[in-house]
């Protein structure tokens, strides 16, 4: 086996294969990063909408809750296919990368909305009451009082989700997006041994996700040591 490995290595790590893997890794990173960033922003907005009490915003609240509950409950692959077929039926000519991006955005938004809401809920009711009694608006309450206290509850599951999310983007290969897993399948089909191909993917996935896990842990530590104001 080792001899076969050694024989494959020079060709496997040839220029074109390396470019192919690098492009696939960039696609994985782009899918994960854009999904996580847009998901964080929209998830935060959704969590805030859920905290509102105004009767006028009730339809928006219900719609937000409905979407969050739907997309948290269906598998990523089903969401991906759903988005794929919805775009296909509606006649939009979008790239597979865009379709995958919409799917990861929906999943990330719904999960992060729940993680952020749980963080908001972890802040004692009396903090909200005190802020309201002092005429803080909802955005001011969240900005100055709630978020600084909720970070510690939000960050660990959020970073856990981001790492899971990087791995889940592999499913985009099912609709033909050339990300890391897809690239692995292509190289395996070219005749390279599965152990070499997927062993390499393992290392690349680890290199992508480990710094994220480290920065998450560092951020949590920093927030625990200092009180965020």
């Amino acid at each position, binding site marked *: 086996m080792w001899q076969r490995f050694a024989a494959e290595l020079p060709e496997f790590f040839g220029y074109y294969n390396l470019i192919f893997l690098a492009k696939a890794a960039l696609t994985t990173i782009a899918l994960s990063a854009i999904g996580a960033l847009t998901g964080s922003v929209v998830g935060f907005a959704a969590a805030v909408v859920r905290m509102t009490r105004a009767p006028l915003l009730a339809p928006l609240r219900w719609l937000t809750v409905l979407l969050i509950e739907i997309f948290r409950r269906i598998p990523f692959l089903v969401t991906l296919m759903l988005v794929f077929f919805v775009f296909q039926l509606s006649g939009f000519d979008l790239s597979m990368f865009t379709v995958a991006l919409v799917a990861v955005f929906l999943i990330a938004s719904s999960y992060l909305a729940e993680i952020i809401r749980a963080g908001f809920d972890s802040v004692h009711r*009396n*903090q909200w*009451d*005190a*802020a*309201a*009694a*002092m*005429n*803080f608006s909802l955005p*001011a309450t969240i900005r*100055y*009082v709630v978020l*600084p*206290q909720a970070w510690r509850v939000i960050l660990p599951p959020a970073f856990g989700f981001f790492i899971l999310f990087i791995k889940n983007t592999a499913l985009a290969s099912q609709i033909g997006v050339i990300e890391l897993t897809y690239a692995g399948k292509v190289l395996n089909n070219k005749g390279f041994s599965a152990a070499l191909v997927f062993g390499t993917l393992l290392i690349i996935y680890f290199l992508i996700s480990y710094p994220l896990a480290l920065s998450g842990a560092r951020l949590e530590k920093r927030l625990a040591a200092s*009180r*965020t*104001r």
Partner: protein
Amino acid sequence: MPHLELADVSATYGAHRVLDGVSLALERGEIMGLIGPSGSGKSTILRVLVGLLKPTAGEVRIDGKAIDYGRAVDVASARDRCAIVFQQYNLFQNMTALDNVTIAPIKIKKRPRGDAVAEASALLAKVGLGNKLASYPDELSGGQQQRVAIARALALKPEILLLDEVTAALDPELVSEVLDSIRVLAHEGMTMLVVSHEMGFIREVASRVAFIADGRIIEMGTPAQIFDAPREQRTAEFVSKILRH
């Protein structure tokens, strides 16, 4: 015209009626004590006054103007004029004592930071915490936290101060330091509605006392009348129990 007036105010928590036609009026600079058993609705009156609970019936008036609880601007105006000190202090846990006192003046009332900090420092010194400006709530004793809460309420420059059992969560030896701070305010002529089980304190600072039970005002009168010669049986029973205790 009364400074603060509740006219036949009712309120509910879900299906449970907690206030049932409460009427009372305070003149400017008057201090009224609210006494009554736990769950009688005393704290709810204060929560209604700062818009944390909307009344289901009746009217709240400040200087004769009724608050429309459906209008955010009216509620904001009521909160501008009334400041509440909560039983559990409710200090912002992520802020120092100084930040707790300055956050609303700076961020909400848009006062210059320098003025707000100078004023907050003076207020904290006034309640005996001039050396605790940089302390976080969890580094302060209950009595100290409550005094920060009082300073925070005063920094809002309220016309009416609402005190919700401010000594209830404190160890006995810490009660006097908080009461001393309130005595100072009482002498300065601030309108105050004080919910308390400290009968001696109520007798000392309040000009009138209302006894509340089951969400209704059972009896109202001067401290001497309520504590020494109550007309209602329930008031007499409550007062005797509390004084015996």
